[in-house]
């Protein structure tokens, strides 16, 4: 079997994606010594390479736009190239945090609004902010509508923090999401389809050593403490894993996804986002969950690649 791992691209998360791609490809080589595992950046030549080499399966590990917004998956579908992961349509739904937050059960979604930059210009930023915050309770979180790795995300404790947070978020996207911040146990739950069933792997609990789980805390080993499986009661574990599987199904996701959520002190689940091309770096959450399940990254993605070729 020839598997092509695509990573990189031009998104703000290119660096993370390249590292994810290298790690995934090496893991596949360990478990599939007889297969050809190639790697490629996403460039103007990518589609030509795919057309010429005709890999049996593509694994897109591109974070951010192109990789997660459905566009690359759309083209792969058009070319009839099997690939691991969600369809273009499902990826599009998951990529837009506003859409994803609208599709999951609303009792699990912190209150939010999504607004474009032009809206603030047209109606006056202060008026819009005043209107928005009148219906929300601080602290709030301001984030770009798309993208990951906490880039452009700011926690706002007061009204005065909002304008500068907007400027930071609009650096990454022309829409922002302003959402009620939720406190509790931060969890990442990987859902994998092995065989016919989507099943959750052990939840990963995230405890930043200091401050928030920002880019720095995500990618500097030692700056966050992870508990895998999460320190949850059996019923809470069942509760959150069921929820992640339901998100996977509601959004029509395929093969693998990672749902990020917060479990508050009252046992309520708060959906944050779902990723269709989750990070696979040394400090990423999905490899931890896979390992805690007694599996290897190469094994899981090798199975998913084989399943993709049979679709």
């Amino acid at each position, binding site marked *: 079997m020839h598997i092509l791992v695509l990573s990189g691209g*031009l*998104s*703000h*998360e*290119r*660096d*993370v994606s*390249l590292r994810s791609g290298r790690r995934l490809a090496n893991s596949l080589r360990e478990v599939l010594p007889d297969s050809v595992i190639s790697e490629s950046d996403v*460039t103007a030549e990518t589609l030509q390479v795919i057309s010429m080499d005709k890999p049996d399966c593509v694994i897109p590990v591109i974070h951010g736009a192109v990789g997660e917004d459905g566009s690359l998956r759309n083209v792969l579908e058009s070319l009839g190239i099997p690939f691991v992961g969600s369809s273009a349509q499902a990826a599009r739904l998951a990529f837009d945090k506003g859409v994803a937050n609208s599709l999951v059960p609303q009792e699990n979604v912190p209150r939010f609004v999504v607004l474009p*930059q032009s809206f*603030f*210009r047209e109606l006056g*930023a*202060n008026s819009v902010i005043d209107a928005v915050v009148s219906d929300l309770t601080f602290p709030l979180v301001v984030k770009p509508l798309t993208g990951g*790795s906490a*880039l*452009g*995300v*700011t926690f706002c404790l007061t009204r005065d923090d909002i*304008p*500068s*947070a*907007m*400027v*930071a978020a*609009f*650096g*990454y996207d022309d829409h922002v999401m302003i959402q009620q911040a939720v406190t509790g146990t931060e969890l990442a739950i990987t859902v994998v389809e092995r065989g016919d069933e989507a099943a959750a792997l052990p939840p990963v*609990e995230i*405890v930043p*050593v200091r401050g928030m789980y*920002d*880019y*720095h805390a*995500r*990618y*500097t*080993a*030692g*700056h*966050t*403490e*992870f*508990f*895998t499986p999460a*320190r*949850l*009661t059996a019923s809470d574990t069942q509760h959150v894993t069921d929820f992640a599987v339901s998100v996977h199904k509601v959004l029509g996701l395929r093969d693998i996804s990672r749902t990020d959520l917060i479990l508050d002190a009252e046992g309520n689940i708060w959906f944050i986002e779902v990723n269709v091309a989750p990070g696979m770096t*040394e*400090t990423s959450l999905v490899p*931890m969950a896979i390992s805690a399940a007694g599996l290897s990254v190469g094994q899981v993605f090798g199975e998913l690649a084989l399943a993709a070729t049979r679709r």
Partner: protein
Amino acid sequence: MSEQVGSRLDPWVDSYAQRAQGLTASAIRALFAVASRPEVVSLAGGMPYVQALDTEIFADIAARVIREQGTTALQYGSGQGDVVLREQILDIAAEVGVKSHADDVIITVGSQMGLDLVTKVFCDPGDTVLVESPSYVGALGVFRSFQCNVVHVEMDDQGLNPDALKHALATHRNVKMIYTIPSFHNPAGLTQSQQRRDEILAIAQENGVLVLEDDPYSLLGFEGEIPQAIRARDDHGVIYLGSFSKIIASGLRVGYVIAPHGAREKIVLAAESATLCPSNFSQLTISRYLAEQPWREQIKTFREIYQDRRDSLLESMQALMPAGTTWTIPSGGFYSWVTLPAGLDATNMLPRAISELVAYVPGTGFYADGQGAQSLRLSYCYPDPERIREGVRRLASVIEKEIDLIATFGVSSPNPTAPTTFNPFTNLG
């Protein structure tokens, strides 16, 4: 619930030295991964335009080095460096008025290693180093790694300001060094006049403080005479750092330190501790190149290329940059220092610039104390003039959008992803 032990993914997390605490992942640094893509006009990295070199010449020299001096090239060598190359370096140093002896020259793995060694030899944790405002990001990284107290001293249009230097010396204790880049400053693009150099040297001498002179660009001036080094006026009070990276080839990683006798002895011993010896192969390659090739002609070629690119940058900025944007006019070297309109933050603007396929280095990287948010460094050394024009066009558009954003919200943004340390040269490929 059980007393489960978590993992921090690094068993040594509590064992690192204090000086390593700032060595962490940075979103800004990660953004530079995109800058290496051909779609992006990178005005970020200070990469010499090595395409102007005749690589066949280097292929021939490298082959002969191995064929004729193979057992030397492939063996350990002197910790101080090859004596023939040290003699040749004296010819280059003479171009900037530095007269020395080969015994006082130490070959290093780029002048960056020289910076590291001099700091190691002179500075204890807490010692103060006075640097220009802004200063070279690689030097700041070295000073931080030795836990120095870095104090920025104001510059004016002639570089380091003497009154500000006097004030800094009067108000800070344990000042061990004045670190300066007198010619075609990185990142400011400024050059000290001869009078200014004399003033700075006099102040250093009066206060008994060493001058660490970093001089990689002085042969890359576009007009007038080659600026004469501060060390040309004082063999004992100035340690001079030179480099082949900008005038021949950065990939060979050969630089040098010229130091007074006592310091030289310690620097050689420190160099041996760090690397045992610099690469014989690189040294012999450079040495043959200097002996056999018209290197002054090659430097002239580089000068012409860089001047053309500098002109392209300045003309494009003049034509396209939004009102309120200002920049320095370099008379040599690689860089112009751009100050954005009030309220803009170059670090926060970088993601938008990357989205628009243009890269620069935010100004905060050139300060140890968080200044520089409103500034950025543009390098014109690598892209051709047409790409530079396109890069400036994109950047001007980004700045205009940022002005609009700031006007909409009435503020500049905070800097949630500000790097604690980052080196813009590392990730540029």
